């Protein structure tokens, strides 16, 4: 049976790990390579790096981080943040990333998704959808959550599947950094709309939130940052908890 995945995410800025509350108030907390290694040794099913301010800053440091990590961690590594072009994707893959997540560029220029999935295969193209609730719908935000595009999120998710995305990483902007749990409604609506795996993100504060993301949100994988990063829970604890709730995990 296919297992639900737990994916610790490390927000990286200038080669160092940070995790912000609602994308501001950054706090330096360690070396990403060592952190990733701790996670993979602890049973993380994948590792995710998000180069958070990459849209506007020099991002060469991330290539170095990816290269070093891929020589130490032998589980899949996804890298996102500031990925603009086929050339950016190519460079990250050559450094050892297994998947690349595309956010702003997927909205502004959806051809990047179709072209890159043709060139590199859908398996390495993750489209990151940052969505915020507005009335009874969700709208897509870009540029690390700063720009509201007004685009409706669920239709956009379907469009990305059709364009060749292999997975969708769905983040609730309302929940990110709040630790009150995933936006379950958003996750389940997108998951039932598309036939590709959905990774739930944004808002995890305890282990029950991970359970909800899978059981209620129908996510194939759950991504979390702070609950793992500040030592509140280990990946192993999370897996054992999910297992005790009847969710299939790799232990």
């Amino acid at each position: 049976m296919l297992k639900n995945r737990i994916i610790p995410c490390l927000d990286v800025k200038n080669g160092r790990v940070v995790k912000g509350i609602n994308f501001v108030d950054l706090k330096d907390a360690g070396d990403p390579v060592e952190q990733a290694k701790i996670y993979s040794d602890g049973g993380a099913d994948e590792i995710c790096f998000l180069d958070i301010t990459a849209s506007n800053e020099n991002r060469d440091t991330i290539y170095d981080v990816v290269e070093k990590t891929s020589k130490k961690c032998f589980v899949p590594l996804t890298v996102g943040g500031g990925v603009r072009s086929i050339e950016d994707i190519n460079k990250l893959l050559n450094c050892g990333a297994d998947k690349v997540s595309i956010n702003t560029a997927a909205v502004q220029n959806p051809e990047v998704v179709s072209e890159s999935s043709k060139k590199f295969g859908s398996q390495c193209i993750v489209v990151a959808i940052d969505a915020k609730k507005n009335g009874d719908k969700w709208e897509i935000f870009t540029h690390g959550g700063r720009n509201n595009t007004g685009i409706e999120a669920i239709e956009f998710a379907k469009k990305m599947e059709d364009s060749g995305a292999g997975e969708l990483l769905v983040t609730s902007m309302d929940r990110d950094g709040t630790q009150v749990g995933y936006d379950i409604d958003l996750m389940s609506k997108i998951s039932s709309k598309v036939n590709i795996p959905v990774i739930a993100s944004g808002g995890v504060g305890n282990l029950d939130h991970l359970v909800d993301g899978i059981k209620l949100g129908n996510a194939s994988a759950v991504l979390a940052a702070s609950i793992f990063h500040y030592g509140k829970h280990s990946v192993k604890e999370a897996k054992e908890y999910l297992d005790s709730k009847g969710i299939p995990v790799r232990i």
Partner: protein
Amino acid sequence: MNVTIVDYNSGNISSVINSFKEVAKDKVNIEVTSDLNKIKSSDKIVLPGQGSFKSCVDALNSISGLVDTLSEFAINNKKPLLGICVGLQMFADIGYEETETKGLGWISGKVSKIDNQNGKYKLPHIGWNEINIVKDSKIFKDIESNSHMYFVHSYEFVPEDKNVISSTTDYSSNIVCSVEKENIFGTQFHPEKSDKIGLQIIENFMNL
């Protein structure tokens, strides 16, 4: 010993290179090349493959003499070859991804899309799944049945001769996830991304 990872522009092979180098340490020389002479003089060959069946076959064919060199190595000289993911799928006679495409024809069979049972199963099949070892395979030394491996694919290899199948995994149906036919080995999963247990498979292949 020389192990050659065939670099034929089939997408991202850096993880394959990293994992083989990790296992090889200083004991085994890992070459990454499409140079026909280097391939010929290798002791073992790794054939990775990412993207579609068609794009991988096209990429192999675009390097003059490569397919013949690989066939000579694996079929005539019977030296060990490991195909990973689409590298395994290309052993088939024919694949149906994008369009009908002729494969290498080393192991009779076809590569077709996994039946998602009208959306009940998400595709690609991404993540960790257990392998059910159905016959002894040299690359499964010290690997237990029900070990978890990392998969990412939407198409499956369906060989005609079921005796070549060394393990299957349960996703919609029993999907072939590894084959062994004499000196030819293949895994649908990614040993290079399957943590320590995946590295053990790589080590087993190197120790053949």
